[in-house]
């Protein structure tokens, strides 16, 4: 293998090996804050290889995970997607001291914003739109609640962007790297040196799948938000009761809202008016 890098995220160590320089660079762009310089021997190796298939010479990609699973893929996009998703599933399942929350984490002027909702609700689009408006996206899709401190950090994940989303985000003023788009692998680091520090979440937004002509943002009780987050919480080594308490303790510090999105620009403006009161007065 030409390229190898070791990483450590929380208490999980793993290594990525590949024979494709571009793949190594893109994957390292996602995990670069988690490089493990103390690892002497490679641990938990994810081996991603590209070969030219005879007789047509088209590339075929293979991923081998540390526990012996294998995947074959016919495009770089698919190979990177599967590699990232597999590492995410392995690394963030059954964490000892953290709860995996289904949501994006954005750093605002008054603390963290957690954007949650079911898949397809628009978490990625809204959080990237907020980033374009001057806030900082820390991570997409998966946030990690530290049970001991109540702080929430972002799990490194790439953004899954379709063409319509890219068009919308460019319309909102977000510059997206063409290189990452070509490989379907845009990561928070592509948008600037994202703030990776865990934060106290002060605003929690639950996105509804319903769309309106104008955004509708209504206060949501902390208990409703806690239950919604609990339903979307991934596996943990803690019991459901412990998860419920940890999440309830976290939302106790939040103002919670339910969001029916309108146009992206209007929804961003409406959220900014809540998070930055001076915006509403202007």
């Amino acid at each position, binding site marked *: 293998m030409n390229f190898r890098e070791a990483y450590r995220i929380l208490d999980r160590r793993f290594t990525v090996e590949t024979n494709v320089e571009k793949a190594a660079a893109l994957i390292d762009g996602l995990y670069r804050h988690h490089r493990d310089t103390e690892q002497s021997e490679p641990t938990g190796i994810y081996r991603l290889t590209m070969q030219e298939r005879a007789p047509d010479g088209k590339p075929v990609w293979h991923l081998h995970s540390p526990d012996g699973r294998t995947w074959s893929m016919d495009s770089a996009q698919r190979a990177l997607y599967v590699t990232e998703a597999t590492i995410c599933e392995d690394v963030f399942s059954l964490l000892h001291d953290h709860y995996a929350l289904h949501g994006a984490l954005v750093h605002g002027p008054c603390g963290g914003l957690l954007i949650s909702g079911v898949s397809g609700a628009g978490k990625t689009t809204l959080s990237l739109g907020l980033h374009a408006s001057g806030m900082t996206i820390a991570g997409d899709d998966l946030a990690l609640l530290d049970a001991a401190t109540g702080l929430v950090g972002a799990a490194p994940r790439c953004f899954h962007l379709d063409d319509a989303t890219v068009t919308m985000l460019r319309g909102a003023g977000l510059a997206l790297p063409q290189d990452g788009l070509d490989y379907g692998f845009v990561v928070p680091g592509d948008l600037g040196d994202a703030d990776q520090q865990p934060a106290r979440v002060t605003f929690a937004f639950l996105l509804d799948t319903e769309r309106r002509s104008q955004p509708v943002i209504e206060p949501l*009780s902390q208990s409703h938000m806690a239950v919604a987050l609990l339903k979307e919480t991934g596996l943990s080594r803690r019991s459901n*009761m412990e998860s419920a308490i940890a999440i309830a303790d976290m939302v106790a510090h939040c103002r919670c809202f339910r969001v029916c999105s309108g146009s992206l620009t209007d929804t961003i403006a409406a959220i900014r008016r809540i998070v930055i009161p001076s915006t509403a007065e202007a």
Partner: protein
Amino acid sequence: MTHDLSIDKPVRAESAYHHALPDGSGLLFDQTSQTAYPITETARLIWELCDGEHDFDQIVSAVEAKYDVNRETAENDAKLLLADLRDKGLLADRDTA
């Protein structure tokens, strides 16, 4: 089993855990079914009075006194909530309380 709410003194199930939240709402967690339920501020007041000491009339009076509602509304709200809590297994059965 039908419960006569007028004489019943409801008791919280031992498996039910309540977490009060600063906005007045509360989270009920049933350890048997491993299910969480959100409750409103009014429901939280009623829940807290399900201590085996207060009967239905006393619970309704407490709701009436604390919130700006008439007796009929308070009775209906309390009746619906208590029935819902029983359905979810969050109240102890009278025979075992």
